[in-house]
């Protein structure tokens, strides 16, 4: 019986210790470190092929997915228990104010005042400096200013427990995937077998609504490329004034924004419409839809033979005996440097890939037009566009945000704010005189115990016996 009690006490002590947290943090750092040097999410075979080292150890310990190994979860859970037990343990002590702390400043003064007069003078000081009198024992006055820092420490540690709860909710219930939407086609969520993340307890049934892309738009900014040299010496020449920085004549179309006009359909009727862009997603019934990208397929024709190709790809065109690259497909709205806005006539830039790997730009091919290449005509017939969205169902994220913000705010208050506690002990000396012992405690960057000490000096100056 006593042994069991003993073990229980020791386990409690271990979990309520700050040393334990430091050890657990150190263990976590080891995991993080491994996670940064081994490519996470990579396939072990590809890893070995790419010349990865320590293949056996990597396989055995799951280094390629270290953050989902039982060992990592174990350390995280131990830290959570440590944090919770520690917070609870300190809460008990803080409530009773059972801390023995050494003061930042401690002084003894002999005052030419009676006990009563000293007390009155100190009360006056407490009031004037806006301290709160928090206790008055037989011979001791205790006053405080600001929020007791240990409450703040406790509060934000408890907030961290809530953040952990948010992570766990995410881990258990999250659902995540990609959606590729074609204009005008109502698409059920989870219908496409895209790479997907699913928490252990995530709802099995797919949502009862569909999503439809009504329109997809792109916007570009026209600008020119900066002619900034690559080598250090030329850069030094700029510094010395021997060379200037200039812009090239080469025009560049920088993406400004992409928009998907979306419609949520429930039983065939519209429940919600929104145009989303990157950083402005659509939210519906716990699901959030994010604009992550888009893809265009180009339809080209050569000698009556039609072929389709995705932008940015290369294709060996037998009729020409050449490999062409179709890059930089542009359509949509163009914002020009002079402030004017115009619609782009859709075009793709054609490049020829030579056998030695060099690329030669052949020029721009506009929609509905043809380009003569070696006497043959290559025509840009049309294009098809898809918008790529990611979706996520995550009941933990709300809790995480609120708790995270709370932790940040309270931690800032604790670290950057100020808290003071003054403890005065008055001992009667012979002849109606008193000995005053002052202990000043303070915490937080704004706190300055020397300043309070100086203020107290000024207040008591006239009565101090040297």
């Amino acid at each position, binding site marked *: 019986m006593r042994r069991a009690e003993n073990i229980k006490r020791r386990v409690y002590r271990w979990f309520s210790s700050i040393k334990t947290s430091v050890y657990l943090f150190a263990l976590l750092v080891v995991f993080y470190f491994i996670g940064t040097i081994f490519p*996470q999410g990579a396939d072990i075979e590809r890893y070995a092929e790419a010349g990865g080292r320590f293949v056996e150890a990597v396989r055995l310990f799951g280094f390629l997915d270290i953050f989902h190994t039982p060992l990592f979860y174990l350390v995280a859970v131990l830290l959570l228990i440590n944090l919770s037990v520690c917070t609870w343990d300190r809460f008990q002590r803080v409530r009773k104010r059972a801390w023995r702390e050494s003061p930042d400043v401690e002084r003894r003064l002999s005052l030419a005042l009676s006990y009563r007069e000293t007390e009155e003078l100190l009360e006056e000081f407490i009031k004037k400096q806006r301290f709160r009198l928090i206790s008055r024992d037989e011979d001791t006055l205790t006053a405080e200013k600001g929020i007791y820092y240990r409450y703040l420490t406790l509060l934000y540690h408890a907030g961290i427990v809530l953040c952990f709860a948010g992570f766990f909710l995410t881990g258990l219930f999250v659902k995540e995937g990609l959606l590729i939407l074609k204009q005008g086609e109502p698409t059920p969520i989870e219908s496409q077998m895209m790479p997907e993340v699913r928490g252990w307890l995530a709802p099995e049934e797919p949502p009862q609504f569909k999503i439809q892309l009504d329109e997809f738009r792109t916007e570009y*900014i026209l600008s020119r490329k900066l002619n900034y040299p690559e080598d250090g010496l030329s850069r030094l020449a*700029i510094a010395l004034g021997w060379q200037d920085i*200039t812009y090239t004549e080469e025009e560049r179309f920088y*993406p400004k924004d*992409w928009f998907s006009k979306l419609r949520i359909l429930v039983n065939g009727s519209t429940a919600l419409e929104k145009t989303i862009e990157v950083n402005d997603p659509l939210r519906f019934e716990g699901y959030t839809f994010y604009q992550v990208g888009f893809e265009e397929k180009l339809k080209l024709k050569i000698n009556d033979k039609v072929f389709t190709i995705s932008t940015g790809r290369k294709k060996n065109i037998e009729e020409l005996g050449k490999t062409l690259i179709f890059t930089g497909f542009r359509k949509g709205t163009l914002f020009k*440097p002079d402030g004017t806005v115009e619609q782009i006539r859709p075009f793709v830039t054609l490049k020829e890939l030579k056998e030695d790997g060099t690329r030669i730009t052949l020029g721009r091919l506009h929609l509905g037009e043809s380009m003569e290449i070696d006497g043959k005509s290559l025509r840009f017939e049309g294009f098809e566009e898809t918008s790529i969205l990611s979706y996520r169902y995550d009941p933990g994220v709300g809790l995480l945000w609120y708790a995270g913000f709370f932790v*940040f705010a309270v931690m800032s208050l604790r670290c950057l704010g100020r808290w003071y506690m003054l403890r005065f002990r008055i001992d009667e000396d012979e002849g109606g005189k008193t000995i005053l012992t002052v202990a000043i405690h303070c915490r937080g960057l704004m706190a300055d115990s020397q300043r309070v000490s100086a203020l107290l000096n000024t207040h008591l100056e006239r009565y101090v016996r040297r």
Partner: protein
Amino acid sequence: MSVEDVLSRGAHLLTVEVRLLWAVGILYMVAAILSLYGLITATHRSGRMPHAILGFTLILHTGVILLRIFETGRAPFQTLYESLSWFSFTSAVTYLFVSKRWRRVGLPCFFVTLIASCAIFYALLGRSPEAKPLSPPLQSWWFEWHVVVAFSSYAVFVVSSAFEATYLIAKRLLKTRDYALGLAPEELKPFRTMATKLVIFGFPMLTFGIFSGAAWANEAWGRYWGWDPKETWSLITWTVFAMYLHAQSVPRWRENVASTLNLLGFVCMIMTFLGVNWLSKLLGIPSLHAYAV
């Protein structure tokens, strides 16, 4: 004035800006060399000169940053070139602010000005000053705050580790002397308190830096954490500084363990900056980017 306006004209403003930034980098270097000279010759009064140069450089650097804001019409933290300049600026400002009482102590000044000048030269030689229009994912309120706060916290940690390192060296030297690196034995403790105060100041900032990064990723891609090496290194840095703060309340660890953790935090911060790529290369492990999906 917008990015487009600037791009539509010649690049003379940019040329001026780049030349001024070279001057700033060189002046930081001069301050570093003078601090080193003061250390070697042990003439602690020579501490005045590097500080005077540092003060002047900061005025010039403020001008460069304002010029950048004027050129681009937005906050100057959006490319690595800009962030490096901001980082060295905030490091130098933080140092000048907290070193008021410690002007005689030349080592932290050497450390900080050396890092500031290295950051500037890396920006000038390794990055392009081009002010490109922001790509759609970067067009977020969160991004600006994320970068400014995270980089400012790094600056605070640089100064903190400069103080910590000086403290450790001085502590050792004071075992055999009465005075070392501009410090007397009774000054050691308050000097070290400065290092701790700086971490206490920087830690909530780094917390916000990570939190805002996650909030931004969540808004842009719907995933607040992806265990990408950069994210993970920032978490390592954060965890190491959390260890430092906790070690402060374990009496036996308050001294050497805590000091080591502060310096380790600085190393981790540099790793976050430079990324893990070279470490992967060093160990012959293919980096994540080779597998990027």
